[in-house]
């Protein structure tokens, strides 16, 4: 049974939302860029530095053991959260970008050669384009792009045509950051696997909005950032199937990732430590664990229902504004409303909204190929989280009225 989110209690958990910005109550609609943190996440980080701070692993003293337990405990929480098979398939990284680069460097360099293909889509964030371009340039491989249609859906027929025995990897976003489209991830994976190609899914914009299940999706790699999931910045996750991670060479050499080192030969550590060279962001991992606890406590049933209603309400409200066009109208969307206006450039929209305490993002959202596809230089983007309300949407609409006044 789905119960309704107790929105006032939820908002109370986020101290930053109580602020005023430019003399107005903060309306935070920039969750696609980064999300706010509940008090429990802030407390977990403060508590770690106040009581437990020590380096993890190999320490014999008590605090080091406690820090290790908390750090590894966070890994287990992540594993459960995404329903992966084993803790060793969960690699702590800095963020989504690092996760993709790790796979490009470690898996890509070993398996991609001249004339091979890597497939991405037209709605990728730059972080899921540039690492593959770099790899393709180095190896003489080809980067193929699955087109999107006018509503922002992936054109699956074209994807099918691009798959071939030359396909060495498919790397596609789970939810588009610029358009909000939820991609048919499972189908994308099935089609690639039928062609013998592994799949990386960029889950940065998916994990804050919907449950993700590694066993169900059956993807080979999945990456996301902690800070978009109500956790701290500086911590991210790479999930990889054990068989792939085992066979891959390390990404960063150094401490932690070794079993033994002599000048003649170094023996690498086991998973997941093989990919965690150097002291990790221990507090970040613990903070991410607390964020996952928070999200689990609310439950995705409630989160999804609330956000879908917000999206429906927001879509309707913005659609009724003359001279405003929503970019990204896919059937299945996460809570992202990207839009352009006839009379005002997104940058001007952003400034005028900010004057009213409304935080949105304006620009190309690190997805310039998406902007090129829709032949626009930029959009204004309101991106929602479960703590947003219909009042926030109403404030946005009022803010846009002010834009229309200035540019009348």
């Amino acid at each position, binding site marked *: 049974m789905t119960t309704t989110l107790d929105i006032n209690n939820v908002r109370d958990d986020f101290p930053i939302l109580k602020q005023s910005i430019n003399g107005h109550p903060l309306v935070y609609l920039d969750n696609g860029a980064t999300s706010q943190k509940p008090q429990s996440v802030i407390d977990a980080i403060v508590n770690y530095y106040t009581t437990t701070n020590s380096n993890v692993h190999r320490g014999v003293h008590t605090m080091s053991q406690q820090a290790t337990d908390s750090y590894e405990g966070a890994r287990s929480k992540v594993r459960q959260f995404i329903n992966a098979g084993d803790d060793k398939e969960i690699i702590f990284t800095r963020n989504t970008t690092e996760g993709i680069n790790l796979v490009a460097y470690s898996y890509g360099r070993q398996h991609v050669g001249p004339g091979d293909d890597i497939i991405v889509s037209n709605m990728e964030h730059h972080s899921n384009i540039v690492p593959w371009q770099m790899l393709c340039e180095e190896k003489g491989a080809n980067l193929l792009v699955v087109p999107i249609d006018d509503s922002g859906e992936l054109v699956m027929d074209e994807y099918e045509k691009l798959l071939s025995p030359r396909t060495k990897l498919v790397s596609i976003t789970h939810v588009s950051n610029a358009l909000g489209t939820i991609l048919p991830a499972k189908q994308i994976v099935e089609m690639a696997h039928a062609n013998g190609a592994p799949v990386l899914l960029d889950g940065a914009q998916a994990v804050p909005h919907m449950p993700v299940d590694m066993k169900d999706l059956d993807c080979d790699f999945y990456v996301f950032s902690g800070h978009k999931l109500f956790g701290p910045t500086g911590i991210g996750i790479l999930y990889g199937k054990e068989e792939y991670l085992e066979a891959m060479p390390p990404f960063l050499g150094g401490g932690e990732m070794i079993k033994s080192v002599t000048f003649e030969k170094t023996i690498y550590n086991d998973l997941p430590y093989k990919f965690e060279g150097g002291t990790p962001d221990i507090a970040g991992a613990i903070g991410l664990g607390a964020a996952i606890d928070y999200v689990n406590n609310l439950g995705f049933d409630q989160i999804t229902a609330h956000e879908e209603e917000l999206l429906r309400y927001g879509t309707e409200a913005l659609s009724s504004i003359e001279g405003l066009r929503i970019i990204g109208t896919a059937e299945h969307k996460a809570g992202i409303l990207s839009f352009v206006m006839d009379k*005002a*450039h*997104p*940058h*001007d929209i952003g*400034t*005028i909204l900010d*004057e009213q305490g409304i935080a949105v993002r*304006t*620009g*190309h959202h690190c997805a*310039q190929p998406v*902007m090129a596809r829709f032949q626009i*230089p*930029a959009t204004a983007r309101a991106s929602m989280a479960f703590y947003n309300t219909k009042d926030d949407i109403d404030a946005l609409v009022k803010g846009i009225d*002010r834009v229309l006044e*200035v*540019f009348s």
Partner: protein
Amino acid sequence: MAGLSDLYQEILLEHNSKPHNFKKVEEANQTADGYNPLCGDQITLYLKVVDGLIDDVGFQGTGCAISRASASMMTQSIKGQTLERAEQIFDAFHHMITEPGAELDLDTLGDLETLSGVNEFPTRIKCAILAWHTMKAALSGDSEVTTE
């Protein structure tokens, strides 16, 4: 703190909706492209320089109201001026935009003073300055400039 009305003054909005010298100058002998990668603004500036004088100037491209108005007003202010004078106008403008509270060289700035409100909006300074850096690039023979 400056409010929206200081930023979006009437004259700026007019330049935005009907920019001056918004054209390609076919006989241009010094041109440059300017990019603001953060917001995707792009401008191409055309200068026809004859005997040390800016004989004609035009610009094309896409951008927000502030970058368009700034480009439009810049072309008006430098057209017919010597290169030396254009440099002086650049310096006065740059000073005005980047140093809040600084004394303004109103004789040199003229209408450009309308854009002074931008210095209260740090996130918008790059919008206002894009055309100007593009002019500098064009005059010094660089074909491309990026503000970040």
